[in-house]
């Protein structure tokens, strides 16, 4: 049963209004309410619970039960800023209480030391504006540990020779190995690589109010029915609500941050479910709306005082978007894996985390994972080899044989920060509320494409070593669909080249903080949520300290 939570009046100036309840917003709400502050969380999506999380692929994937709604929230895409953007579905993100953490795969890799200091180490890269973070891995390490223990991550410390130092082991053992994991582990060792149990934000042991994973098989893209997936909904928001100081207000679409004549934020303006407009007043505003909606909200908040958008004196709000590169290879094996049972990933490897540009001819690095994350309908539409007939007896026979015998090796890697890759406001397209729609502009840096192709080759090599009967990898192509939304309001010490400082405070607005994928300075190697959550724990500490010293208002 959910505890009674406060209902704050919009005119009541609460300590913090948080925009978004996902990976970052949920943790921010938990931390700040636990620290004694009065918090309102405005979430544009509905407050769904475990009873709503079904295995119906139409409801979840076609009708977007958990995600942004293309009909209400159209988007557009172009490759470069000189093109006219065309309306098309350009991104997916969680649109419900808990945000994208409700439906994610739950791969929870920490970033390594290199991710924070890569620019110093490798120097400038043509066509990109790679920068060091203003914080290091050591600064973030205690917060990675907090994520693992407080949110719930399964894994095996010390299993990877490439892991960065850690202050504590994982709070619970890894999830069981899947057939794909065994095949991956054996083949990788044959090749001299170093596979290890995947760290996953899914419980291998029960926690109060949450079950261990029951291996139901509807994991990626679906909500967890038993609370085993460590979403903000399962792991953070219940704690926030229990403090009695945090109100989660769903169906509240924030579309402007209001400022006063001193350039201070005074609250967040939102549409309720009936499209009535309200201003929730707060002493400070924290935007955790994701790497697409956070910059959009700043741009929508432009006014006389901030003509280019709020907190955008640098002009880089929405820019340097990184989607992560990657490549996938699929293999079909002689015997049944039944990999549809369980969560997605049980084994990964990080041998290629830091590739030598002198040897491979491009900058970047990544990891590989063994997975099967495809539910039945999706499998039939895209899981068979490209030369399989699309209907008729041969199609049916391939479905019957391959569904239980298929696995994938997925490569995840870096994206370089390129100024023209961005989310911006489409000049023509409007959403169902009449507001400018998101426009995605993206053209992968050439090194990102080379890395993706290189990772695909390693994936095929692994499947070959594993003795796959059949294997294929689609050719690497330029991305035009965004899932990981990173870098669009990046952190830095210099207000000319970054949007927030290392406390996540906007350089231009003293009581405005941003924390989510947009804060990232580099893309990591493809699994950003763990770092987004660690940043949120850290930001909450910094914000708490500032507030207690009276340095926010």
């Amino acid at each position, binding site marked *: 049963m959910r505890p009674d939570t406060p209902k704050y009046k919009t005119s009541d100036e609460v300590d913090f209004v948080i925009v978004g309840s996902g990976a970052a917003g949920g943790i921010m709400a938990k931390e700040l309410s636990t620290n004694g502050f009065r918090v309102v969380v405005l979430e544009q999506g509905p407050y769904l*619970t*475990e*009873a709503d999380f*079904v295995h*119906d*692929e*139409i409801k979840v*994937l*076609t009708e977007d039960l958990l995600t942004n709604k293309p009909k209400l929230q159209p988007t557009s895409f172009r490759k470069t800023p000189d093109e006219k953007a065309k309306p098309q*579905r350009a991104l*997916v993100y969680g649109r419900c209480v808990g945000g994208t953490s409700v439906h994610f795969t739950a791969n929870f890799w920490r970033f390594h030391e290199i991710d924070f200091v890569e620019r110093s180490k490798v120097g400038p890269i043509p066509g990109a504006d790679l920068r060091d973070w203003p914080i290091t891995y050591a600064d973030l390490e205690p917060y990675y540990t907090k994520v693992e223990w407080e949110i719930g991550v399964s894994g*095996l410390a010390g*299993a990877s*020779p490439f892991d960065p130092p850690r202050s504590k082991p994982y709070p619970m053992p*890894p999830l069981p*190995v899947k*057939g*794909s994991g065994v095949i991956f582990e054996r083949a990788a060792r044959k090749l*001299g690589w170093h*596979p290890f149990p995947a760290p996953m934000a899914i419980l291998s042991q*029960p926690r109060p*109010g*949450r*079950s*261990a994973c*029951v*291996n139901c*098989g509807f994991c990626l893209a679906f909500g967890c*029915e*038993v609370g085993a997936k460590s979403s903000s909904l399962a792991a953070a928001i219940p704690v926030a609500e229990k403090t009695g100081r945090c109100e989660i207000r769903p169906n509240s679409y924030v579309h402007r941050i209001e400022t006063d004549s001193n350039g201070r934020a005074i609250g967040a303006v939102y549409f309720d479910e009936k499209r009535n407009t309200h201003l929730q007043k707060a002493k400070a505003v924290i935007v955790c709306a994701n790497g697409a909606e956070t910059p959009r909200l700043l741009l929508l908040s432009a006014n006389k005082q901030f003509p280019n958008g709020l907190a955008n004196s640098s002009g880089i709000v929405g820019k340097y978007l990184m989607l992560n590169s990657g490549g996938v290879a*699929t293999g079909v*094996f002689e*015997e*049944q*894996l*039944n990999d549809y*049972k*369980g969560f997605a990933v049980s084994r990964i490897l990080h*041998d290629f*985390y830091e590739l*030598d540009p002198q040897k491979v001819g491009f900058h970047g690095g990544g990891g590989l994972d063994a997975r099967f994350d495809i539910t*039945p309908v999706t*499998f*039939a539409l895209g899981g*068979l*080899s*490209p*030369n*399989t*007939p*699309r*209907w*008729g*007896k041969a*199609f*049916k026979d391939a*479905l*019957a044989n391959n569904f*239980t015998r298929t696995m994938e090796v997925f490569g995840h890697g870096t994206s370089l920060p390129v100024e023209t890759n961005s989310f911006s406001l489409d000049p023509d397209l409007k959403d169902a509320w009449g507001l400018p729609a998101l426009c995605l502009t993206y053209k992968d840096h050439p090194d990102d494409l080379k890395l993706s192709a290189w990772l695909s080759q390693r994936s095929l090599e692994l499947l070959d070593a594993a003795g796959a009967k059949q294997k294929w990898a*689609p050719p690497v192509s330029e991305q035009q669909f965004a899932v990981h939304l990173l870098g669009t309001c990046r952190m830095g010490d210099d207000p000319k080249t970054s949007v927030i400082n290392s406390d996540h405070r906007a350089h231009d607005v003293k009581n405005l903080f941003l924390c989510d994928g947009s804060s990232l300075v580099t893309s990591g190697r493809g699994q950003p949520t763990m770092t987004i959550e660690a940043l949120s724990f850290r930001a909450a500490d910094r914000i708490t300290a500032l507030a207690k010293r009276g340095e926010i208002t």
Partner: protein
Amino acid sequence: MNENLSRRNFLSRGSAAVSAVWLSAHWPAIVAAAEHAHQAAKSSAPDKFQFFSPEQAAEIDAITARIIPSDETPGAREAGVVYFIDRALLTFAVDNQQTYRDGLAGLQSRVHELFPAVEKFSRATPDQQDKILHSFDEQGAGGGRVFRSDPSASSFFETVRLHTIVGFLIDPDAGRAGNRDGVGWKLIGRDRDHMFQPPFGHYDKDYAGWQPNPPDAEKTKA
């Protein structure tokens, strides 16, 4: 009492000491809940058409039976896909009504064009039916991994193909009149249980347990 909450509390009762064996021993309560959903889905399975006329339904049924044919194992027909589509056109696929109306007319013309002696698609032989459908299929082979593709298909044939596949493999407990009796999942080997325990298949059943990597790893393998 909310059924889901009690289920969750039930599952997490105790603590870390709760083993998978304990869970499986107590799983019947969950199975009962799943069974309830299954019965609900079953009892709501339609026995008559709401969008199609019986004649139209016979034509659509005949198409679905070529997309996923019946042989030694059940196909689209046994999965009741035509009922799924009929209901889909009044629910999530309401935008496709015109595609079906126009498509059925176009199908009729194509049948006459290719096989003047045949009255309608459903009366053609399977070979003739395949020839007719191939004449609509512009893509041939080819798939590619779908993460979250646009679910709308452009042509009549692509729409029926998509709806047939969805109707054959949708969660049989979703209450959408598709995948009747779970025959689609049975064909592909997907168990209908809501919980599984390792070992899951052939390759993990004799896994000896995790063995550490040698400590001599070089960071760059390339």
